[in-house]
């Protein structure tokens, strides 16, 4: 039972990251590698602020803002500097390595003796006795659902509509007398804000910040988005922002199964194969649709 709980916990945390990747990869069609840097950025900001005695909840908010700033810079490099999307992300990711080390002070910051969002008097009072085992999951669930609903709300506004248009057809955005570049920058900022938020939650749940925690974050996010959107495509009553969470939980479940039955060193290959199979299925369909037209 406890294994299911921890898998759900991790899946939902990475689901928040996947929400961010969904904005860049699916909506903006922007392969954003900033994610590998903004995920630990959230952790670094969280760890640094919490060890200085700041409220862990406030740290979440500031982590979001820090991530948004990083995303905005990637956007500025791409839009104003006319650097290719992939390279803009790589530049930011590389720079963030140093930034993260500077913010956190060292490469490994333990939070065992600190109060986190998961370990404080309020949580202890709200979840007495055996309920305590579910407290972490419940809290992550609330944060994840909160992030999802806020994003849904935003995508429903005029600015959100422009964001969705920018990926499909930026001429439409221009024809509405709006700057498509600015829309992209806003999208990247929100996406990386979400990614950093996930990083901050992850680091509080693990009670340690580790500089290497961002390695491969982009791939996990992408895998979650693709698994989620491909597997649950038929269930049209589910919003895409919901399915990416399912994708993340399934991804983490696969890792859990791989740990149980395979050597973890085989994990990357298993992920790659799973990834490929799902991609092949979804492109098969696209090709067919085109053939019919």
């Amino acid at each position, binding site marked *: *039972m*406890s*294994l*299911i709980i*921890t*898998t759900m916990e*991790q899946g939902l945390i*990475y689901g928040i990251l996947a929400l961010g990747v969904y904005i860049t990869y699916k909506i903006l069609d922007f392969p954003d590698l900033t994610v590998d840097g903004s995920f630990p950025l959230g952790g670094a900001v969280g760890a640094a602020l919490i060890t200085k005695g700041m409220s862990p909840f406030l740290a979440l908010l500031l982590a979001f803002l820090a991530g948004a700033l990083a995303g905005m810079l990637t956007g500025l490099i791409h839009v104003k500097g006319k650097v290719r999307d992939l390279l803009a992300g790589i530049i930011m990711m590389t720079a963030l*390595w140093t930034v993260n*080390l500077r913010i956190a002070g*060292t*490469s*490994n910051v*333990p*939070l*065992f*003796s600190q109060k986190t969002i998961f370990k404080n008097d309020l949580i202890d009072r709200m979840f007495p006795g055996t309920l*305590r*085992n579910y407290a972490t999951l419940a809290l992550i669930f609330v944060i994840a659902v909160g992030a999802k609903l806020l994003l849904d709300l935003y995508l429903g506004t005029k600015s959100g509509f422009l964001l969705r248009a920018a990926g499909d057809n930026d001429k439409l955005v221009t024809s509405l007398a709006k700057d498509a570049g600015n829309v992209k920058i806003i999208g990247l900022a929100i996406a990386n804000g979400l990614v950093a938020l996930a990083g901050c939650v992850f680091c509080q749940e*693990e*009670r*340690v910040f*580790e*500089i*290497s*925690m961002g*390695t*491969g974050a982009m791939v*996990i996010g992408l895998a979650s988005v693709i698994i989620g959107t*491909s*597997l649950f*495509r*038929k269930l049209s009553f589910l919003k895409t922002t919901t399915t990416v969470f399912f994708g993340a939980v*399934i991804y*983490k*479940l*696969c*890792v*859990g*199964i791989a*740990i*149980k039955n395979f*050597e*973890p*060193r085989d*994990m*990357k290959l298993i992920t790659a194969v799973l990834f490929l*199979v*799902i991609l092949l*299925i979804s492109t*098969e*369909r696209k090709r*067919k649709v085109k053939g019919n037209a």
Partner: protein
Amino acid sequence: MMRRMSKKVGKLTGSLAAVLAIAAITGCGSKQEAKNEQGEQIYRIGISQFAEHASLDNCREGFLEGLKEEGLEEGKNLKIEVKNAAADMGTASQIADRFVADQMDLICAIATPSAQTAFNAAMDTEIPVIYTAVTDPETAELAGKDKKPAGEVTGTSDRLPIKDQLEMIRQILPEAKKIGILYTTSEVNSLSAIRVYENYAEDYGFEIVTAGVSNTSEIAMAAEALVGKVDCLTNLTDNTVVNSLPTILERAKEAEIPVFGSEIEQVKLGCLAAEGLDYVELGKQTGKMAAKILTGEAKASELEYEEISGGNLYLNTAVAEQLGISFGEELLENAEICE
């Protein structure tokens, strides 16, 4: 037709995922109080190793040897499960979670990130965690200032005998002034070791020159730049650097300066000498502590973490010959010689 087929495939993957999910759910069993044929209790230990690495592998082997010396042997009264996180934090944490879900009798964590994730996962349970190859348990918040454990967690530290190392370098190279150290900026252990080096360097008349890298690809250039500025290099237990040791040795050889190691494996590879750790011994020491905890002789929270008792001197005579360096009688007498 094609569309229908892909629909089928889609359904298939869907049901596959469901089957996998069920397999995962039913897979996690409850605690088994297993007994062997003689009716003795079988202890279950989960080993969570952070990365594939010669020193860490030695730790693990030593750990099993240490347990064996205390009468706990795999296949007889011990069941071991080894998992490797391939240097990924998320995986390390999932490994720890699984060991806790499986209600292991003890979790052995090798290297700092694994130790921290295991401690975090087992914090609210009765499962003791024993760690090894953690350089600074105090900074990692696994122990307090007085070596007292932070909970049901204790183990061994692989803090380097840095003063001994400096003294040895002085003995071998009486004229040397500058020591170069390569390190990875992301490794907290390396940074704390460098701080200790810098503290003591002056006592032995040395100056420390460091070069930091962020990954393997930068090692060759950093080594190239560093060898021109110093009289010798000395290694920490920095994972990235140790993994690229052959590259570094090559550059040092071209510049005709010696490289000092931090453990026996490095001397075997071509370092001149090391006042260093024997990770198998460190593992053994850890295994003996684990045996005490398993048999109920002591609780993890009552055992202070230990450092290795006494460093060992390793010398490589073949490398010395190449460099035209001769070791004094006194050194040779106390050393283990690699050729």
